[in-house]
């Protein structure tokens, strides 16, 4: 029986079994390497230095007088847990008397946990992961220390970092979140909504060009949709709440729409119940006609799984992920292509992928802050400091914001080129206000209600405007 005829269930289980074995061995190797590096670094330090001599950049320095413990909270998993851990050996080479403890939290609960820890002024950690979408909430409770002095003390490194990370990403971790703002976090992880597609299926269907507009995307989804053959033309993360909120917002932005009339005093009035809002819902519901069965319950894991097992073949706006172009995780790695998200046809439309990504910040209530600053700077370093840092990060499923690393390791992770292209046109994943999660949870719930037929479009869009208005009013935006 050929692979094509084998039932999907058997194929998926075979892949899962294979992946489990590989992941377990791989993770064991990585974890052992990190631990072994810490254990033997003192005795092998000279050897390591000698080995690293060819890898050092002008920014390389060591400091064995720096002591303390870095307790850094990050999210668990390939993208956020493993890459920083992979840079620990080189960090310990530079700062042998600093102890590193990485605490991995499940990302599903991460935002609320980080916020609660920060609000309680906990000193149990001194470095933590933060999303630009949560930045204003953290700044509102003065959770973060400024990186100003750290960058001023190493102008060469600062110049290298600032010139290598796109400005629209840097802005997210300033305060205020503008190019003129002061830096409060260094961003080591970046993401954008990307279009993922199976090149072989496109060819099979006679589709020669990737869809540039939503109308074209809907036609492509229709052409690829063959449910009798377990092939579905569209998949997205349609889980109710914030996930669907992202789907809605992505389409809205590419049509030239905005969440609010303006993001300045006197503004903040929602703009969902508009022509653009109606067109957004229309596009979403039409795409959903060709959806994969898991779509309405799907977060990123479910969507990626469906793409990886070959039953979903087109995802016009999916968060960037390493697994779809990695042959260790999917047999279709060689045939997945990435592209920028489609746009509308009305005036003002543009390919505007939503941006995600994370930084590390230093906790104002934490101890050993000097060590924490060095750790965060190290994770965010590239060839200017040592080529091994970027290599460890990117070859261990990291997703960097540095353009030089995206270029250098594009052959290792083919989707890096799509990511780099998308960064250039990226827009904040959600409006940068503390109420964004509440607003878009509500927006997502209303959008889901339309898709499953619980509400009509007019009711849902009106409810979006009313609900968001209430949230913003409670937040004091209209006083």
């Amino acid at each position, binding site marked *: 029986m050929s692979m094509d005829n084998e*039932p*999907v*269930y*058997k*194929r*998926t*289980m075979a892949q899962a079994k294979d992946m489990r074995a590989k992941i377990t061995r791989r993770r064991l190797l990585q974890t052992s390497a990190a631990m072994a590096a810490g254990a033997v670094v003192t005795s092998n330090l000279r050897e390591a230095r000698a080995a690293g001599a060819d890898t050092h950049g002008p920014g390389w320095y060591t400091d064995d007088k720096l002591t303390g413990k870095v307790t850094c909270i990050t999210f668990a998993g390939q993208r956020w847990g493993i890459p920083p851990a992979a840079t620990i050996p080189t960090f310990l080479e530079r700062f042998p008397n600093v102890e590193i403890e990485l605490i991995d939290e499940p990302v599903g609960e991460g*935002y*609320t946990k980080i*916020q*609660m820890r920060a*609000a309680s002024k906990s000193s149990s950690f001194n470095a933590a992961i933060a999303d630009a979408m*949560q930045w204003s*909430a953290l700044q*509102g*409770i003065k959770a973060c220390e400024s990186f100003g002095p750290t960058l001023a003390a190493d102008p060469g490194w600062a110049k290298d970092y600032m010139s290598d990370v796109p400005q629209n990403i840097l802005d997210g971790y300033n305060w205020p979140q503008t190019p003129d703002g002061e830096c409060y976090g260094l961003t080591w992880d970046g993401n954008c909504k990307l279009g993922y597609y199976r090149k072989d299926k496109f060819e099979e269907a006679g589709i020669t060009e990737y869809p540039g507009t939503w109308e074209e995307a809907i036609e492509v989804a229709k052409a690829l949709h063959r449910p009798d053959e*377990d092939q579905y033309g569209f998949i997205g993360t*349609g*889980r*109710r*709440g*914030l996930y669907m909120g992202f789907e809605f917002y992505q389409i809205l932005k590419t049509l030239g729409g905005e969440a609010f009339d303006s993001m300045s005093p006197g503004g903040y009035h929602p703009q969902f119940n508009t022509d653009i809002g109606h067109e957004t819902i229309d596009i979403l519901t039409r795409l959903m006609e060709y959806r994969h*069965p*898991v*779509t*309405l*319950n799907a977060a990123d894991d479910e969507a990626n*799984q*469906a793409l990886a*097992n070959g*039953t979903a073949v087109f995802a016009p706006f999916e968060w960037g992920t390493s697994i779809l172009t990695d042959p260790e995780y999917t047999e279709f790695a060689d045939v997945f292509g990435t592209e920028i998200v489609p746009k509308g046809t009305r005036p003002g439309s543009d390919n505007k992928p939503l941006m995600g990504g994370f930084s590390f910040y230093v906790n104002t209530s934490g101890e050993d802050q000097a060590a924490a600053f060095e750790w965060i700077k190290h994770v965010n370093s590239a060839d200017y400091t040592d080529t091994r840092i970027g290599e460890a990060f990117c070859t261990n499923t990291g997703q960097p914001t540095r353009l030089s690393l995206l270029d250098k390791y594009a052959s290792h992770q083919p989707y890096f080129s799509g990511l780099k292209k998308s960064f250039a046109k990226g827009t904040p994943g959600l409006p940068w206000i*503390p*109420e*964004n*999660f*509440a607003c878009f*949870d*509500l927006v997502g*719930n209303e959008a*889901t*209600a339309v*898709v*499953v*037929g*619980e509400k009509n479009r007019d009711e849902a869009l009106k409810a979006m405007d009313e609900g968001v208005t209430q949230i913003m009013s*409670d*937040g*004091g935006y209209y006083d």
Partner: protein
Amino acid sequence: MTGVPSRENVGTAAVSSYPRRLPERRVALLLVTPTLVILFILSIYPLIWAGMMAFRVENLFNPAAGKWIGFRNFDFLLTKDQTFWKTMWLTGLWCTATVSIQLLLGYMLAVLLDSTMRGIGLLRTLIVIPVFISPVAMGLTWRFMYEPISGIINYLITSAGFARYTWHTMPESSLISLMITDIWQWTPFVTLILLAGMQGISTEVVEAARLDRVRGWTYTRRIVLPLIWPVVTVVVLLRLVDAIRVFDLAWVITRGGPGTSSLLASVNMYSQFQAGRLGIMAAYGFLLLIAINIVVVSFLRVLYRQEKETRRAAPAAA
């Protein structure tokens, strides 16, 4: 001479020289105080704090904007939020369906297990395994099993020649999928309790029924059910309270979706927390608490009334 107790002055006024004993009530209070303190810190104080939050706007991500708004959160939930009433309806449906089916299946299993055949002990042990599985692990496992394309259940169904089912991925079938999982997990618990009740029936009664050739449904209705009724009511009450509060299973498998088709009350409440809307979440929690209390109190009233009637009838029969 007072102060020094001796054999001569025991029982006289000199007894007042013995060390003063604290009154029993005070001793009891002293011993209970640590528990009360812990109860206050871990239960009462959070309850009061949540109560205050229910009357405020509290955004987890913007605490500076918190303010008193009176009953607005309750008014919103009760009069403006259609989702609230839908979740109440779904939760009521969930409780009725799962508890009834668990009771029925549990009774049938208990009857089967109430025998002395060989291997029955092992069977009883094996049958309760689902109760001890972590709900999150179980939910994840069932979610993978329910996968419409790559899940094992649909694989077995299609291998048997039937059409694939949508399970948790469609609004029409998501709640049923959750119910199946919950019934699978908790029926053994019900079985265990009912079996214990059955085995508590006096053998004399059983023998007498056998001699009178009382069998089948008559035996069940006239003999077994009345005798195990207190056990039945306890297990129904326990399962009902658990069913109202169910969260982990629904959260792991469907998160209340697709749409609001499986949005149970606890899941919706937690969603408010995730969105940072703590005031709404607290108000929701209190309304749920009131609902649980109404159900429990009503249930207990029915139970006590029946017990009273039984006790009244017993002396008359004697």
